[in-house]
């Protein structure tokens, strides 16, 4: 049973999805407990997988017992074990959070909603764990299809946003598929590790076909991760989707795609190829700089709370792409650590936005008016998430900046370092604007005489099913920061196998 942990990570949500369809037709109230149960199993199995990886190194698991390269193989190392655990944890948190929101927003299709939610989690986990490039494409498509549906269940504007996402997503996935096709032509294999071996053994890195494949795959993945300027599908999709959907997809989808990018660059192609032979690092990092600045500035211009957060995701994607392309250990470690840290910070602020929307029915930033007095615990959750996004120690966000800036300095890329710092300041402005509304109200009183705002109002916190996930995520953000060493040591083990220190980009 224990040996099957990698499969259970996937199968638990998948089988629950089937169960939810069947049971949910008759007993709608049974959906929620089933979903939580299924995701608990998945998270527990993910923990078990991670522990096994730490103990025994890379795990190989052949799906259905078919040997690679013909069957689908899971090859789980420190990187995807960590990401898988992150994905399943976020899924669990947003599932708990959805308890009241789903009946309120999609009361007529509870069982359908939950089925889709479980399926998208399954596909995302599959993308993280699979070792097969074509299988990854399939999962990429089905996860996207599922998320279009999840997004379109939101407001009227969500339908249009989902359509835009569908078009962009399909283009991205097609690029990826084409790339994989080219690789298949050259190597005759679809197994990621097999492709890598053939590429090295037959010295195919000089081939133009492989170059085209690399470009197609990279661009495809960039579209899917909303790397500026390929981000246009993202803001509205997450701003107008149902609350739970944006809490689940907002933090996860882009990060999973960053994972795919790292996997492709390092495992399928080779770091020697991507970093040294192509030598595009400098250009891509500058593109990341633009993404960081554009995302932060665009976020400043938003009045809709969730749209603002969506643009932050665009900036954060820039952090990670830049970190990966710095081509040194610190940058890569920083990018991967940031991937995990950012999932939880973003989740934290999205959960907050959802609570505000649930309590006030407004999407505008001004809806946070006076919340420090009314909902101190909720605000405490936001403060932790916001400080982490700004990068104040000892939250997780500080340490990801710590490693990323180290990487930037080691690579001598001062533009990237500056962009990170400026973006920190932009986030400070963004969140202190929210804090100001929450603390002073929208129109603070003039003069000293009348400075006792009518804050005598009773506390009215959100329901426990919404508040506890927020507080739990906030404490995770703190814990990931304080215990960053243990996470980073796993990442360093993973990055260490590539001997990157020698290939610092200059």
């Amino acid at each position: 049973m224990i040996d099957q942990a990698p499969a259970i990570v996937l199968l638990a949500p998948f089988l629950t999805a089937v169960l939810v369809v069947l049971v949910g037709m008759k007993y709608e109230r049974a959906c929620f407990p089933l979903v939580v149960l299924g995701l608990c199993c998945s998270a527990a199995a993910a923990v078990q997988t991670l522990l096994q990886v730490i103990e025994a190194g890379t795990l190989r698991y052949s799906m259905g017992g078919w040997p690679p390269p013909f069957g689908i193989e899971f090859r789980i190392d420190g990187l995807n074990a960590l990401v898988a655990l992150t994905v399943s944890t976020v899924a669990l948190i947003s599932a708990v959070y959805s308890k009241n929101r789903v009946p309120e927003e999609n009361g007529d299709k509870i069982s359908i909603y939950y089925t889709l939610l479980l399926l998208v989690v399954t596909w995302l986990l599959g993308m993280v764990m699979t070792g097969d490039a074509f299988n990854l494409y399939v999962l990429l498509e089905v996860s996207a299809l599922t998320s279009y549906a999840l997004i379109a269940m939101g407001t009227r504007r969500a339908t249009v946003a989902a359509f835009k996402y569908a078009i962009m997503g399909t283009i991205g996935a097609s690029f990826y598929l084409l790339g994989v096709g080219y690789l298949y032509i050259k190597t005759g294999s679809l197994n990621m590790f097999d492709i890598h071996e053939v590429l090295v053994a037959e010295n195919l890195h000089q081939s133009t076909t492989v170059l085209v494949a690399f470009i197609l795959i990279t661009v495809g993945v960039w579209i899917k991760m909303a790397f500026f300027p390929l981000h246009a599908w993202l803001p509205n999709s997450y701003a107008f989707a149902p609350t739970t959907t944006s809490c689940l997809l907002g933090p996860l989808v882009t990060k999973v795609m960053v994972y795919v990018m790292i996997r492709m660059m390092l495992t399928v192609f080779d770091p020697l190829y991507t970093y040294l032979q192509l030598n595009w690092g400098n250009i891509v990092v500058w593109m990341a700089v633009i993404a960081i600045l554009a995302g932060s500035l665009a976020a400043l211009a938003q009045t809709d709370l969730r749209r603002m957060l969506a643009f932050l995701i665009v900036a954060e994607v820039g952090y990670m792409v830049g970190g990966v392309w710095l081509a040194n250990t610190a940058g890569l470690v920083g990018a991967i650590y940031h991937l995990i840290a950012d999932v939880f910070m973003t989740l934290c602020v999205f959960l907050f936005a959802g609570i505000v929307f649930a309590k006030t029915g407004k999407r505008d930033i001004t809806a946070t008016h006076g919340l420090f007095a009314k909902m101190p615990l909720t605000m405490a959750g936001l403060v932790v998430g916001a400080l982490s996004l700004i990068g104040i120690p000892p939250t997780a966000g500080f340490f990801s900046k710590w490693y990323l800036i180290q990487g930037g300095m080691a690579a001598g890329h001062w533009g990237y370092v500056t962009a990170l710092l400026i973006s920190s300041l932009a986030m400070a402005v963004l969140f202190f604007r929210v804090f100001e509304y929450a603390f002073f109200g929208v129109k603070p009183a003039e003069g000293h005489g009348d400075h006792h705002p009518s804050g005598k109002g009773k506390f009215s916190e959100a329901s426990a099913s919404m508040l506890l996930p927020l507080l739990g995520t906030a404490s995770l953000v703190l814990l990931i920061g304080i215990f960053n060493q243990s996470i980073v040591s796993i990442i360093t083990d993973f990055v260490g196998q590539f001997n990157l220190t020698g290939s610092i980009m200059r």
Partner: protein
Amino acid sequence: MTPPAIISITPVLASLVSLLAVIPIILLGGRANLREGASFVAGIVKFGLIASMLPTIMAGSTIEYTLWEIVPNLAIAFRVDALGMIFGLVASSLWIITTLYSIGYMRGLKEHAQTRFFSYFSVSLAATIGVAFSANLFTLFLFYEMLSLATYPLVTHHQDKEARSGGRTYLTYLLTASILFVLPSLIYIFIKTGGGLDFVAGGFLEGHVGGTEALVLLILLTFGFAKAGIMPLHSWLPAAMVAPTPVSALLHAVAVVKVGVFCILRVYSGVFGIEFLSDLNLGTIVTWIAAFTVVVSSLIALTQDNLKRRLAFSTIGQLSYIVLGMALLTPKGVTGSMMHIAMHAWGKITLFFCAGAIFQATGKKYISEMVGIGKRMPVTMAAFFIGSLSVIGIPLAGGFWSKLYLLWGTVEDGRFTMLVVLLTSSLLNAAYFFPIAFRAFFCKPEDSRFEAKVEEAHPCAVVALSLTAVVTMLLFIYPEPFFALADTATQHLMNR
């Protein structure tokens, strides 16, 4: 030979106690007397813990404790030495008195959200002591940021429009400078030294960075700790005067601003090393920057009619005295600089207490409205006079000693320009302080704005300000504890 370092958790507890005090303060929120009781208990325990370490430090030893290695080679670690001790003693003892004063002030004005006020006050003190006892640049930065954020709700306590704009200026300056200047310098030093950020008495940068890099780092770190209020990054301090007066008194005359200069002192002595700085002749640049601030801020202070703003500009000038003294890099200058942390703190807090007491009793904020106030509030104005003496540096108040050492420090190295700067500034100090006290007592009866009837502020406030005034005078007669500490610290830092 210095005795070996002692491993003890006391410094951690000294910082933590006021952080933990937040819990009882919030729980007792409804019962004001018990709540303030909790503040007092925390203050006294904190002071006791710090004072208990005094003999060890006086003997020339240090107390260390490593809490948690958070990043490879980098720990949240505490280390108490003489310099940190000076600051820790001053901040913790003044917290007790300020709590007393706050009770008078906040209740006298029937301020709202007092529980929040006392909670964040407690947190701020935890951060302040954390800075004082940090063993490395990282821990220092952590507590520095914590202090910026914890004081924000205090600065903006009134929650009105003015508070909002003051709070904006406050955080913009402090956060921008620390994120843009300090953080990258920190990481750069970390990379260059291969993972060392621990303060070492003689500095550790020598040999790791070249002259130009050292200059850039020095400038970044000097301005990055914007809490020190070196011009042009000083505007947050006058803006922060929208805070209730106890906050201005303890935080913006002692804790926050002194954290700024303390960080600069620490970085000069513990990161660069005095010898390294003087080899590269970097001290001179800083003395000029500080000298500019000293003179200009005193001139601006002359023009201010709002009493708290005048005090704020005076503080900006006095902070640069401390930086200037350190940057002289001479034994007497460094000693004077450290002593000035303590001496200025007691003097300036008295002045702020008085300003707050006047506001609480009469509602007056402007100096032009305070003509003849000495007849109505004689105790307060007498204390004000003593406080001014100390800040100007005239005998009978503690400030005399630190200023004497600072002057001595300039002469020691033949820096006569700086001598002139310091003397000019002292004259200016006198010019902006004496008229206030003078016109409070001596004016034509028809000019007086107040009845001759004595009516002081809330008794708690009066007791607090008299206490600090008395201590200010005692420090003239008996500057020994701070002097000895400063001397120990200087010897430790200058021993090559």
